[in-house]
């Protein structure tokens, strides 16, 4: 092979490999995206809300927390001041979980109107400020962190 032919072959190989990888990556991403929604957005989405993995952010509504110790889950409502969604989260509550706290739950919305999650993230920041009703959901996400945060 001449030098030019080799370079051409190399370029073609790289382009093909990149395109294939890009396609796989894009397809893989499409299936594994996690959407960040507020209760209002979830309610407005209607049937589109059934299926995809959603991170639902809001405040734990006062007086709605029930802890089922035997079946090992907690039920509560998440509100953004306008709408509320009933949530059932697998597992016991963490020590810092309480009514009125800001949370993000990750899971799926079922047709029976319950949001079932297996991951609960609690607002947990150094500069603690009491969350307020009607706080924009984007603001909440900014201060929300995963396992632990700073």
């Amino acid at each position: 092979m001449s030098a030019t032919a080799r370079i051409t072959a190399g370029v073609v190989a790289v382009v093909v490999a990149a395109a294939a990888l890009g396609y796989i990556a894009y397809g893989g991403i499409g299936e594994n995206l996690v959407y960040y929604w507020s209760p209002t957005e979830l309610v407005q989405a209607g049937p589109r809300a059934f299926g995809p993995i959603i991170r639902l952010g809001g405040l734990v509504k006062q007086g709605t927390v029930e802890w089922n110790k035997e079946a090992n889950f907690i039920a509560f409502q998440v509100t953004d001041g306008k709408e509320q969604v009933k949530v059932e989260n697998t597992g016991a509550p963490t020590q810092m979980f309480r009514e009125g706290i800001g949370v993000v739950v990750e899971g799926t919305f079922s047709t029976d109107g319950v949001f079932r999650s297996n991951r609960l993230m609690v607002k947990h920041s150094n500069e603690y400020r009491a969350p307020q009703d009607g706080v924009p959901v984007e603001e909440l996400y900014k201060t929300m962190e995963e396992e632990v945060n700073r």
Partner: protein
Amino acid sequence: MVSLFGTLAVLVGLAAAGTGMVLGLSSADRRRTGSAALIRGLAYANVCMLALANGLMVYALVAHDFSVSYVAEVGSRSTPLFFTIVSLWASLNGSLLFWAFMVALYTALAARVCRHRFAELMPLTLGVSLLVCAFFDFLVAGVTNPFAPVTPVPPDGPGPNPLLQNHPLMAFHPPALYAGYVGMAVPYAMVIAALVKGKLESDWVRALRLWMILPWLCLTLGIVAGGWWSYEVLGWGGYWAWDPVENASFLPWLTATAFLHSLYLLERRRVLAGWTVALGLATFLLTVLGTFMTRSGVFNSVHSFTQSAIGPIFLGFLAANLLGCVLLFALRVDKIAGRGSMGKPLSRESAFLFNNLLFVGLTFMVLVGTVFPLLTDALRDQKISVGEPYFNRMAVPLGVGILFLMGVGPALPWGSTTLTDLRRRFLLPLAAGIAALGLALSVGARGVWPLLTFGLAGFAAWVSIAEIAAPIRLRVRNKGESLGKATRRVFATSRRRIGGHLVHLGISAIFVAIAASSAYKEQAAATLNVGQAVQVGPYSVTFAGARGEQEPHRYSLIADFKVRRGDQDLGVQSPRLNYYATRREPLGTPAVSEGFRHDLYLILLNVAEDGSHASVEAQIHPLVAWIWYLVPVLVLGIAIAMWPERKSALPAATAEGAARRASP
């Protein structure tokens, strides 16, 4: 006083680095040479000033001098001395100060080590390297100055982030990671010098390898220590979550690994010069991208320090470097093109090439998954994140592919091969792979990907052991040397080969540990009254009661669990929740009982106010501790490979090579 002297030291450092940078970069012009000694001197001056500044900051921290802004930010009279010292890198401004010192240190080391060599390339290399130094000095002196004076002087500070006070690994993980990150600046500068001068001779390639392998090792140690820290401190029951910041450290590690392999190919066969150079440039650019992602607050994660103004500056630095690299590469790459030729598809060369493609593919897919949410947020104003399943689905096959090539590559000969030769070379490794697979099946391992990993790891491990043992056996057989003498001779003459295969051996075993710990994790969660038990795997975990413990800097709520395995009493494990004065919510510390076969890992979720019941999550992580146990093997391998070979040993090396060629 500390404020004044600290700022002055950084400013003098900046002046030295800036002058050195200008002198060094101007040596790109052939007519200007001869200031090499001055540039070296300026590099030394810069590192001395930055060492002084870091020393002053540590002094201010230890002396609780709250008139210094950084001390007021992270210092506290109640923090133990050890954590006071390591809080030098506990927050943004201090970590950048330390960072600036590290890059200054690397630059000065490169200047010192290569002072009698590479007269043509060194001034420019130091110029580019000092450019990076000057950038960090500038950040520290201006935007993020940790020495800024505070008035009125506060009586006490909040102390470092409690997460960083929870474990001694905090003293190790950040500096190792920084040493890996900033160390990439030297090979970057060397690659740029090679491109500008159009010279990539084999002694320069060897120097590149040396200067890349050291930061590579540091980065590896930093990543593993980070995973270990995450596992021991964060208490979510894992060591890797594809967090954007973990990815940020993983990306340059991937390209650096690919770079080290293609450098070897370039040195041995004079091929893939352009590709290798591109990997070297990309590695540094990815560290800058990673720094941007971790230090600008665009991501929320364990590592994101509070919003800061340095985001746009880093983005600008990244853009300028990227543009410069692309232009330089396009204009100059034909000047350094290799003269060698690739072998047949079934040769060691192609294995190297495919290995490189897989590494780059993995880099690409991690990069896409990491920056995708940033792009959709910026372009479509849509808040999303990319789930862990994406990364696992992509990384597992690519990782297994890399493991496959790690076994097959060294087993293949250079150039070309025949079918009979192939059969001879692959027979024993294949048997070892099948044996490993059989062993895994017999202890109950199931699942396609994990089993594939175990089989391939057996194959690769056999190849590595055989590659280490073969020259020793040859010496014993052909030269009649004793086993001890032959081993000593081989270690003296083939350090790179021995070291490289030791690293491969360690990596094969780490692959097994990762596959087992992620595929066969078991867990059980329950809320227990005192005396009640939960079963996980072979263990029964009984809640024995809760207690409190007051320390100067925190209050801990501790739950005691009695652990039994059948009739065997395994003692008490005590996961805890720690309360720090500066935050309302507690931080958990899991109880980890480490073992060769598996770890038992207890996470305390909550304790009732009266101590009558507690919620616990009990997990079993098979083989996970091997990930950390095997790190010394990697360090040993790299140390052997980096140890300079004695000149007098060289003839023996050729004789050994000749003996090897003569054998059937």
